[in-house]
């Protein structure tokens, strides 16, 4: 049987609502949902806490999880940000970074997800250092994927 060509087109959610303790830095900018992957785009601006802006890296075990489900979708790729044990050392307090995290595709009908670098109860490993945040790891809760006026079809 001839296989149906898989389309990479999907939807993009711009500035999705979410909760976290990271003082909006890094900032979650977009979520792209296709039948191949789930991509989250972030922007980070270094802070004055560190003389040279500090450093960043992601835990390769980072995952997304649909709200109300225990199923984890673990990170499959990262663009522009190194994975632990590698790290990116900034050069100044003026540096900034645009990066993306890529996870497996989500099933249809998921309305919101969490993105977790450190699960509850685990000690933060200083994956993403943000001095103003309650914890050092990089967790985003209840990222809404169904918000009216924020969802656009990709051409």
């Amino acid at each position: 049987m001839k296989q149906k060509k898989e389309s990479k087109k999907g939807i993009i959610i711009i500035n999705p609502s979410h909760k976290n303790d990271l003082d909006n830095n890094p900032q979650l900018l977009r979520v792209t949902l296709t039948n191949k992957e789930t991509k989250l785009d972030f922007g980070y601006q270094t802070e004055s806490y560190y003389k040279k802006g500090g450093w960043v890296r992601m835990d390769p075990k980072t995952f997304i999880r649909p709200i109300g489900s225990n199923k984890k979708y673990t990170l499959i790729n990262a663009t522009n940000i190194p994975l632990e044990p590698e790290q990116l050392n900034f050069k100044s307090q003026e540096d900034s970074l645009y990066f993306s995290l890529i996870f497996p595709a989500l099933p249809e009908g998921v309305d919101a997800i969490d993105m977790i670098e450190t699960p509850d109860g685990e000690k933060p490993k200083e994956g993403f250092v943000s001095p103003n945040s309650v914890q050092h790891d990089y967790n985003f809760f209840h990222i809404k994927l169904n918000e009216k006026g924020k969802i656009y079809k990709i051409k």
Partner: protein
Amino acid sequence: MPQNKEAVIRYNIIDKCLTNRYNPFPSMNDLIEACEEELGTDFSVSTIQKDIKAMKEDKGLGYMAPIRFSKAENGYYYSDPDYTIRSIGLNDKEIEAIEFATGLLKNFQGIKVNDAYNTAVDKIFTSIKAKTSDKDKTLVHAIQLEETTHLRGIEDLDKYIYCIKEKIPISFVHYSFSKKTYKANIIHPYLLKESNKRWYLVGYSEEHKELRNFGIDRIYEPVMLDMKFIDHSGGDLRELYKNKIGMSPLESGKPEIITLWVSDVFSKYILSMPLHESQTVTEHIEDGSIRITMNLVPTYELISKVLSYGEHMEVESPKWLIKEITTALNKTAKRYEAKKRK
């Protein structure tokens, strides 16, 4: 090179020889030499004879070229002096113009549009005159533009052009150098504008609900969207940038009369290449200096321009602009003073 392509090139070389008014009646040796020179390989008399026969008689080729041999001149010629096999009747001057423009475009290497253009030009040259000769190449080397370093985001230029042409909105992430923040936004693109070797995407910004421009070097991951396009209804956008030097307006963003004094040293430069098309000389001063006015929207780029002339240029009005320049110069002076004290 495929044999048939090489044969087509030889036909074009022979055609070029037969239409060269400065060397009429080329001999068999002339034709062989011309082919060998252009293609860098040896050709026999029989190959060129076969080429001439094909050009004259091959119905598939379709030239049916009226080639004759003159015993008196010991050379070949077209019995119809206007005949040429060139499908595009470009004359040498027109060909030279294309080569000149190609040379200019080389300044924007890396742009896919430019790659497509180069391929198109190659095709034209293949069909009309075999290939660019070494002599023609010297034309490209006869001009040198200031080199542009690689601008971040230039690789998406063709995507922007396509979206402008096809009216496709774009989702993108923009980083503001001044605010030091990233923002996800949607633009309905209308125009690509070049200013001071930087490219800007101009269009309706969904975030700002108005016309905005974004430096493409600060745009991350443009994604084409399948949504209704908001058309521009405010006339020719190119007019919008006519009353500005640069892209970043200051203050009200409205045009103002700017008066500048220019020293004798630089007055001739400013007269031979005005700062802006609205530039008018209001006074020629005895010492050779001049006073000029311009009617334009003050921009950050205008301030940079004035500062670049140092003591040879002075803003005389408006007052707020004098203050801006003074502040900038004072800060610079303080910085150098501090260095001296170290």
